[in-house]
């Protein structure tokens, strides 16, 4: 098959469907004793260890007939009985052909997953709430030692088709063809702030006839810190405790960073600061400059932010961190006495702050501190 170079988003058709957990499945899950489930997890961890990159092979691919496959077997039996009772060899032959077709499909469905390489792509940031997407790159990797170019069978595009990826009890994403290096995003609903381990990705396919489910549970070591959900709020900057006492002028110095002027864009400058509106008006590329705050270093204090609960306050803080970073302003964050991030500037600083906010007063955050202390 010949593929023209399609637009990347057209190649990858993401379709969301409701999470596939029926009542029956939940009941059966409950029926399995915890001990057994733990053992299964252990066995799985040994068989398919966590790794940022994983290539599916016979060790990690499971194949079982799907419900339709069972119906198919039923049809085969029915036809065989029908043929036997009418003593018609051709009907018996048809039933045997269908049985043989089933068998061929098993080979094809195995082939469809074998050699599929999944690589986790580093995810810069994921905010809580809404749907998080974990980027995974799908590609083909030959299991044997032969160079992939020497394979005369089938075009590369048709190696892996109709592959569905999802986290347990989550929406799936479906990849229709794996073409070269195919980037896909596996969704995860309702993430909470803090350190998140989304667990194993179920990689499954019903190709070619839907007779068997071919699947694998891949652990791509997708641990991720989920940032607090930003919530717009008034920016309250203040001097930190000691300085605040010295400075009688008090706490409020809001809205310092004012828009200053437009000047010609210099290649290499952040595109975030390009005045697109002016560019659209045909005035050429211009950069917005902001006046840098001079004077005392500024702190964002969690204590200064009001809200229903700690989560809302953290959300507001997260928004402020992003906003100040966008304005390229120097700031530090004080969460409480034990959690203080020194003033700095730039994206890495922003990430540090957000991570601290994300882990603040969460179980995983506390665990981490304990391990550091130890």
């Amino acid at each position, binding site marked *: *098959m010949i*593929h*023209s170079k*399609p*637009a990347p988003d*057209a*190649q990858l058709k993401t*379709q969301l*469907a409701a999470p*596939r957990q029926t009542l029956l499945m939940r009941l059966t899950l409950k029926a399995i004793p915890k001990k057994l489930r733990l053992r299964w997890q252990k066995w799985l961890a040994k068989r398919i260890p966590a790794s940022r990159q994983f290539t599916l092979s016979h060790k990690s691919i499971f194949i079982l007939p799907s*419900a*339709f496959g069972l119906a*198919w077997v039923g*049809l085969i039996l*029915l*036809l065989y*009985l029908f043929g*036997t*009772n*009418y*003593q*018609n*060899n*051709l*009907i*018996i*032959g*048809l*039933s*045997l*052909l269908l*049985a*043989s*077709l089933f*068998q*061929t*499909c098993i*080979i*094809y469905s195995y*082939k469809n997953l074998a050699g599929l390489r999944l690589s986790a792509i580093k995810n810069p940031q994921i905010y809580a709430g809404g749907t998080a997407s974990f980027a995974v790159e799908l590609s083909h990797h030959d299991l*044997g*030692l*032969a*160079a992939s170019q*020497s*394979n005369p*069978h*089938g075009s590369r595009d048709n190696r892996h*088709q*109709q592959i*569905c990826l999802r986290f347990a009890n989550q929406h*799936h994403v*479906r990849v*229709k*063809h794996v*073409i070269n290096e195919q980037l896909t995003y596996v969704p995860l609903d309702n993430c909470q702030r803090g350190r998140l381990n989304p667990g194993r990705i179920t990689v499954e396919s*019903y190709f*070619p*006839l*839907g007779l068997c489910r071919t699947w694998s549970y891949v652990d791509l070591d997708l641990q991720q810190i989920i940032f607090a959900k930003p919530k717009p709020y008034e920016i309250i900057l203040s001097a930190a405790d000691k300085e605040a006492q010295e400075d009688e002028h008090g706490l409020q110095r809001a809205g310092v960073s004012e828009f200053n002027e437009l000047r010609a864009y210099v290649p290499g400058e952040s595109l975030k600061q390009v005045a697109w509106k002016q560019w659209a008006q045909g005035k050429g590329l211009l950069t917005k400059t902001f006046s840098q705050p001079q004077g005392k270093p500024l702190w964002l204090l969690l204590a200064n932010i009001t809200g229903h609960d700690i989560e809302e306050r953290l959300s507001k803080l997260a928004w402020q961190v992003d906003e100040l970073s966008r304005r390229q302003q120097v700031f530090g964050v004080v969460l409480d006495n034990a959690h203080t991030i020194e003033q700095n500037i730039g994206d890495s600083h922003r990430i540090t702050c957000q991570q601290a906010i994300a882990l603040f007063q969460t179980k995983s955050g506390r665990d981490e501190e304990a391990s550091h202390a130890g």
Partner: protein
Amino acid sequence: MQDNFDSHIGRSTLFWLLLTNIAILSPLFDKIMPWSIGICAICFLWRVGIYFGRVAAPPKLLVTSLAIGAATTLGLVASQIGALNALVNLLLLGYALKYIEMRQVRDVKVLVLVGYFLIGFSLLEYNSILNTLHLLLVSTINTCVLISLYQEQSQPAMESLPESRGNVRITRSKSSLLNLSQFKFSLKLLAQSLPLALILFVVFPRLPPLWLMPSMDNARTGLSNEMAFGDISQLTRSAELAFRVGFDSKSQGRLANQDLYWRTLVLDEYDGKTWHQHPSMQAIQTLVRQIKPTQSTPDLQGHNNKSIAYNIISEPSYQKWLYGLDVATSDDPKLTMLPDHRLYALNDITQRFSYAVVSYPNAVMDRELSKTIASISLQLPKGLNPQTLALAAQFKLDYPKPSDRLAAMMSYFNRQAFFYTLSPPPLGKQQVDDFLFNNKAGFCAHYASALVYMARATGLPARVVAGYQGGEYNPEAGYYSVYQYMAHAWAEVWLEGQGWQRFDPTAMIAPERILDGFDASFDGASSYLSDTLFTSLRFKHTPWLNDLRYKMASLDYYWSLWVLGFDETKKQQVLDKLFGDISLSQLAMIILGLSSVILLLIAYSAGLLHFSFEDKLNRRYLSICQRLINKGLVETKAQVNSQAPLAPIAPMAPITPMAPPQRFAAEIAPKLTQVNPKLAKQFAGFSALYIALKYQNLPPKQRRLKQKRFHALYRKLRFGLLVN
């Protein structure tokens, strides 16, 4: 059911469904009742409308009520049209209604499964080679539907424009109507599945029918169980095949045409108009499933017990009687032997039926005649045909010895001005008198009944036998074809000490009809070809076309014999021929071996396995390196890492051969030379060859040379490492 990932039914799926619908329904159209055809057609048109976006899907209520209505109607008429016909109609209606009602991928799958079942159903009646190929094609199209569910179109660049039309969501794409790649893939899958299916077909056990199934109601063809004087002349107008016979090679080659009297029916009651079976025989026949008729072993005369073994493939006649020569016996469980030495099937012959027969032409048929049968065989209608009775009395007077009397009666037909015609003038009330004394023209039925009538009148038990006479020999495959126009009637007379003897008065009038077959005495065009316009029998007089006809016919014959008629005995024959005398476990091993070879081949063609030189090259190189490491001749990974931190080592590789071969060779050279200089030299050469073969673009001749040296060195190194 967690089947497809979403419930969109793609456009190519819809298209294949349109095609499948016609393909599956068309072979069954004569089984469908007219109003079912109507509903199917409406459903189809509706679906076409939905496909082109002209109409919306029908409301669920309408479909449900239609389904319930159709099912009830069918239930009511089921007794009239037969259970099986009702079932087919029900399935077809369900198929058609589901077809317009389908909303989910799941519905499509149900359609596909029912489709396969309907294909199986068609095979019940349409089972010639061509029909089988046709239905195989239909299966391929049906499989396409499934493939289209799981394989996207070959053009990935398509705008997905989910559209809501009625309740069915259609994904539109710019692709062409016919998706050939899906068809090719379907064909490939089926073709790859065929070899294993064939093996299974041969070895899979054939069971006897597990329970009685209803059969199709069909117009019966061939002889009927009563014979009026016009009946056989109707049959002579039919060029349909009745049955085919293949004689076992052990029996003497070709039988002469005059020996081929295929007994089918014994008619021993005459009411002045028609001959029919006596009620007692009819009772035996209807009860044949419950009470097995007493079976007598053939009464052989000791000195001449010639037997003829042959195999008959009967075409569907929707009757139960079968064909056999003289005293016919068979041990086929699907049929039984009747007291009058005929064969009788337990079920209606609704499809080609193959059975083996052994006949004893010299056996005596009923040395003793029971009183009841004697009285039945002497019965005559009262007060009819006085002239015939007078003639019979005269014969009895002139020839007191029965055999002489019969010979005289036979020659009477010869001496008088009788002539043989397929369209005789009508007969009056005194049928036999009219024929013998007024018309003096008729065909086999007239002559046979006249002879039987006269024999009975003189006190000799006699009966009419209806069947077929002759057969067309196919030199290609060496079998006889018996057509409906070869239908014939003759007489059997019981003689003391000789049993029932065959007398064929037709042979006296038209001897060439018996000696050389029907075609010799009649022009086909005026009889069996007059009603059928298109039949290959028309080619009889064009030699090369006739040859072709024979070839096609023999193909069909072998098909019937070896595929349709394949059973446990045939299976044994095939296995014996292929493997000789082997045990069951050996056979199982062979089958297992063959199946795994097939699996490997499929896997290979699917692109799972590939054998290339490069593969071997790498494997051999790596295996030597591994061996060197195992011998402790090379430092482990950690050491190498510390010494040469720049060596690009694959993150997953546990050992050093993943390091560039040149560096690896250089690293191990000093230590290896220390331990074993010969090995070191060999390995250096081996490594150099590997590099050359892998990375250099060599001319083919040189490449071959290097490959040879590479493999030679490989063997030497392996041996060397093994010894050291």
